[in-house]
């Protein structure tokens, strides 16, 4: 049974990235915006894994450099979520809100 082509992987990865981008623009809740950022990171990971599978080395194994990069992306994303949620908690302590509409201190 044939496997899907690289184009299909790239297109669904682009769709996932676009969904994440739309969520970051539309939503007003910082936590949900953060989840949408995670979706965008995951879309980038999907691109990397697809390229890793499709560029087989001359030995006949997948090119594992792409998967190593995904490994590091997942690690950095975990660290980023931890720090970001800590920032959100301290923001909520200071302002009692997590809606971006109500955070207007920097508005000129």
């Amino acid at each position: 049974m044939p496997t899907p082509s690289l184009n299909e992987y790239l297109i669904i990865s682009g769709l996932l990235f676009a969904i994440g981008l739309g969520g970051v623009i539309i939503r007003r809740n910082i936590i949900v915006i953060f989840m949408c950022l995670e979706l965008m990171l995951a879309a980038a990971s999907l691109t990397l894994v697809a390229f890793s599978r499709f560029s087989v080395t001359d030995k006949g194994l997948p090119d594992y450099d792409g998967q190593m990069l995904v490994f590091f992306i997942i690690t950095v994303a975990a660290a980023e979520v931890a720090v970001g949620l800590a920032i959100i908690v301290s923001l909520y302590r200071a302002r009692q809100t997590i809606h971006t509409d109500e955070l207007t201190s920097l508005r000129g």
Partner: protein
Amino acid sequence: MPSPFFYIFAAMMLSGGLMVIFMRNPVSSALSMVLSFIGLAGIFIGLNAYFVGILQILVYAGAIMVLFIFIIMLLDVKEEESHPRKGLAITAGVLIPVALIIQLTGVILTNDKSSSAPPLTLEAAAADYKQDSVIHKKLISGSLPDVHLIGRKLFTEYNFPLQVIAVLLLVATVGCVALSKKSSAPKNGDKPDKG
């Protein structure tokens, strides 16, 4: 007709992503994110990236989702957005991703990459590894020793980035503790206020 699993998992991933945006309740959004990542892990496994797929489920569905749910519970976020949304934000949030998709499809359609994934020649690759190593045995028997190959690469070629990422995790841990402490530290014998 390609394998139906790809389309099942892709639909799962994309519908999970859409549900993250359209669910009003943040807890539903967090659970939809998990659905999306499980679909993504299925696609990874379909791409012969077993280790990355399992890692995706363990880290995202296991750790990060729990962290999100925990913070949502801690902050007691209610059903949000009773106040009207701004039309401008919705317009921009639809138009910009659609423009991105159109551009991307245009670029992708210009190259001809419509062939299937190239086959893996596992028996031929076994010659590069030592005779009685686990990698050699598994390659000879025709299964891809994904974890062993990644581990070998991680601790040889990528040893320095691995240690840098370890320091990054340490910095993130210390940063979280520092951020979570009360910012207004009690001075000159003031009593720290509760709450």
